Structures are given as C-alpha cells and as structure tokens.
C-alpha cells in the first residue's frame, strides 16, 4: 500500500499547498467570501480530471503520449503564470493590510472571483489527468486487491491534511512573516512547476534536450522513497534533471524572488502617517 500512498501524496501535495496558502491569504485579508469561487475552481478541476481519466481508462478513447505530455507541459506553464500573478497580487495588496486598513481593499485591487477560481482550477487540474489515470487504474484493480486504491486515496487525503495544516499554521502567523514565507514559498513551488512543464515539453518532443542531464541523483534520492516523494510533491524536484530544466528553474527563481523581495517604490500617501518603503 505504501507505493500507492506515496503517489497519492505526491500528486496531491503541491496543489494542496497552493490552495492552503491561497485560502490562508483570503481569510487573513478578510476575503472569506471569496472562498466559494476557489472551491468551485477546485471541484471543477477534480471533476473534469476524473471524468477525462475515466474516459481514457475505461473506453477505447486514446490520447497519444505526445498529446498528453504536451498538455501537461502547457498546463504547467499556464499554472506558473497564474501562480506568479497571484503572488504579485498578494504583494501589492499586502501593503494595504500592513497599513491596517482592516483588510479593506480598493475595488481596483480586488481579485475577481473568476481569476481566483481559474488559479485554483489550474493549480489542481494541472496534474489532474495524470492523477486521475493512476487512480482509475487502482480502482480497476480492486478485482484483485483493494490495496492500491486504498493507498491512493489515503495518500490524497494525507496531502489534503498537510495542506490544511499549512493553512492553519500560516493563518496564525503575523502578517509580515506570513506574507514573506508563503509568497517566497509559492515562488519556489512555481519554479518547480516551470521546470516540470519544460520537462513535459521535452518528453513530447516539442523541446529538445530530454537526455542532456544537469544531474542524476536517482540512486541517492529514489523517486519512490518518502523523501523523494516529498521533494517531488512540494518542489517538483526531479532526481534526473535535464540542463534545460535546471536553466528554467534558475532563470525563474532568481528574477522572480528578486522582484518579490525588492522594496517597492513608495506609494502616494493616502493617510498622513509616514510609511516604510519596504513592502515586505
């Protein structure tokens, strides 16, 4: 049961963390009413992934391997775009929170419910199809044994539980710490997704260099070990990383973290009090 548990955990972990952080931010910024679109986006992603996966597993419908990898690759890039945009939206609006305007945001900066739902949808749906196929295969094998499907579901539940813990912990942090850590965390997660998207595009042949490796530590960090699983689930760390992936990761993380931590230009004064120029 452990192998399928680990896969379920790994597949669910990243989405669960992103969602946990998003929820914490919404709650902290007094936007609890925005949770509905978030859940909506998630539910839709889950439903579509399960349905599409069932279609592929149980009928003669086929999706070529190249198409599957290309989809995963592009979906990952879209997810990175959304999460990056979300991080910087949080950065902008956090200033207002720090000004102790009790979480009231300018309408101009309010995040529309659609944008929120889309971000959640993409974060969960990105890996959704692959996870669904794995899940349905486990369901299908219940004739022989219920172990795979039990392990898989338990793994997914564990991922959800971890996401919930992140939410709980994050929501209790003071604002500045919360923002710094979750924001930076999301950037690192997004970098992993970016590298992963590049890898998928390499596998589908759209990008070259699949076998030009930057490093291969598969023996030291086996993908099916618990630490390999956690590294993959959270950071999308691939023991076998191609040069292009490594370049992608670095070229995303460095500029984005810089932009994230860079002190913002001072805003035109709304209130009379002086305010710190650093926004983080």
């Amino acid at each position, binding site marked *: 049961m452990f192998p399928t548990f680990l896969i379920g955990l790994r597949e669910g972990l990243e989405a669960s963390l992103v969602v946990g952080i998003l929820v914490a931010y919404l709650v902290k910024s007094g936007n609890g009413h925005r949770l509905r679109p978030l859940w909506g986006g998630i539910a839709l992603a889950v439903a579509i992934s399960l349905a599409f996966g069932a279609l592929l597993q149980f009928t003669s419908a086929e999706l070529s391997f190249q198409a599957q990898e290309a989809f995963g690759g592009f979906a990952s890039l879209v997810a990175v775009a959304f999460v990056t945009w979300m991080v910087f939206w949080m950065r902008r609006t956090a200033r207002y929170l720090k000004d102790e305007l009790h979480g009231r945001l300018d309408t101009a900066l309010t995040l529309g419910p659609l944008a929120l739902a889309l971000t959640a949808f993409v974060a969960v749906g990105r890996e959704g199809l692959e996870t669904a196929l794995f899940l349905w295969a486990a369901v299908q094998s219940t004739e022989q044994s219920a172990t795979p499907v039990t392990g898989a*579901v338990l793994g997914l539940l564990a991922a959800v539980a971890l996401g919930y813990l992140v939410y709980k912990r994050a929501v209790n942090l003071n604002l500045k710490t919360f923002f710094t850590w979750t924001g930076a965390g999301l950037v690192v997660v997004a970098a992993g997704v970016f590298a992963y998207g590049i890898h998928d595009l390499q596998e589908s042949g759209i990008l070259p260099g699949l076998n030009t490796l930057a490093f291969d530590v598969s023996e030291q960090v086996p993908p099916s070990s618990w630490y390999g699983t956690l590294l993959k689930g959270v950071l999308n760390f691939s023991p076998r990383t191609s040069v292009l992936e490594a370049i992608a990761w670095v070229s995303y993380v460095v500029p984005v973290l810089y932009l994230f931590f860079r002190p913002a230009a001072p805003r035109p004064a709304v209130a009379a009090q002086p305010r710190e120029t650093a926004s983080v």
Partner: protein
Amino acid sequence: MRTSLLLALPLVAGLTACGGSSSGSAAASGGAVPVKAGDRTCDVATTTFDAGKITFKVQNTGSDVTEVYVYAKGGSGDYDKIVGEVENIAPGTSRDLGVKVGGGTYEVACKPGQKGNGVRTTITVTGAEAAGSDDAKYDREVEVTAKDDGFTGLEGFTGKVGEKVEFKLENDGTTEHELEVLGPDGTSIGEVGPTAPGKDGEVVLELAKAGTYTYKCGIDDHASHGLQGTFTVA
C-alpha cells in the same frame, strides 16, 4: 479541496463496483499485448509486430511503482527517443500503452522505481513506415543477402523517386545482421531489424527523395567490415 474530495469518494466507491467488471479498454484488449513488468523483469508476450498501432497492456507484477517506455533509435544510435510511455503504474495495477510504429526495432523499457535505464526488451516491427496505411503494398522487391563481409543484391540497384520497395534481407552470415537504409540527408528511413543467421526479414520503404541513399548494418562495427553500400534514387 476537502469538500470536493469528499464528493469524489462516493464516486470512486460507486465506480469500484462496476469498474471491476469492465475489461478495461475493451477495444484495445482485443489485440493488446501483455507486458509483465516485475522487479527485475520486463516480459513482452510478443516481440515481432506489423507496422501500425500496437497496444501493450502493462501489468505491474513487482513491488515498486513502475513506468514503461517504448523507445526508438535516436540520433545517437541509442534507443532514447520516446515513442510512448506510461508512468505511475502502481504494484498490482494495469495500464494500457498505445504506440504507432513504423518498420524497425524498438526497445520496451520497464523501470521499476521509476528511475534508471530500466530492463529492456527489443521488439521488431516489420512493414512500411506508418503513414496511415495498413497495407504493406510495394511496387517491387529486392533481395539482399548479408554475409559477414558484405551485402549482395543491391549492386546496380537504382530506385525511382516515390516508389515503395520491399527490401528482403536474408542472413547468410554467422552472426546477427540488420539492414538499415538512410536517406540522402543521412537520416534513417527504416530497416530490417537484427536478423539471426539463417533467418530473413523484410521492410517496405518508400524512396521519397532523389539522391544517394546509404545502407548498412548498424550492429557493432559491421559496417566497417564491408556491410555497407550506397544506391541512387532518381
């Protein structure tokens, strides 16, 4: 996330009831080739195929999560070009792997633990490049005999642009040989895969472009021992 997963659970449970009775991808199972991927094995039930679509039904008989790839020969001569793959195959479960292949040799790689080069089994596909046509029709055939020091049968052979030729390789040598044909730009257009001494094999190739084609045996250094040559297509 919590809510939707709770919703998904009854769905999963409900489908468990009827999921077991389906023969999975029913249409594919009609011609699906079983592959047993174990901890150290990769047993492919059939290893020779006709060009076209092949569906493998991969069963994980090992104790670790596995993934199975089908590789074609890449530019470097190694089997590292992915033609198809299935990942995250949990122990005790089965997944289908469908590929579309033309004539030539491929390697099926089972990778327990989802790492490394995997346990590999070579498969041979005979027939035309899969250009959508299922028939291996050809305009003419030419017999090529391979001895350990050279090929005979292609001297004086000239092709016509666009014609489909069946190359029939007979191995009169003492060791395995193959007949690989490369187009004017140096890329392989197809081959008769490794053929044992005394056996034969064939492949139908379309000579699409004009120019000088090369043929050779790609095994070890056979080519440098005389198993190579050229012909023109006009």
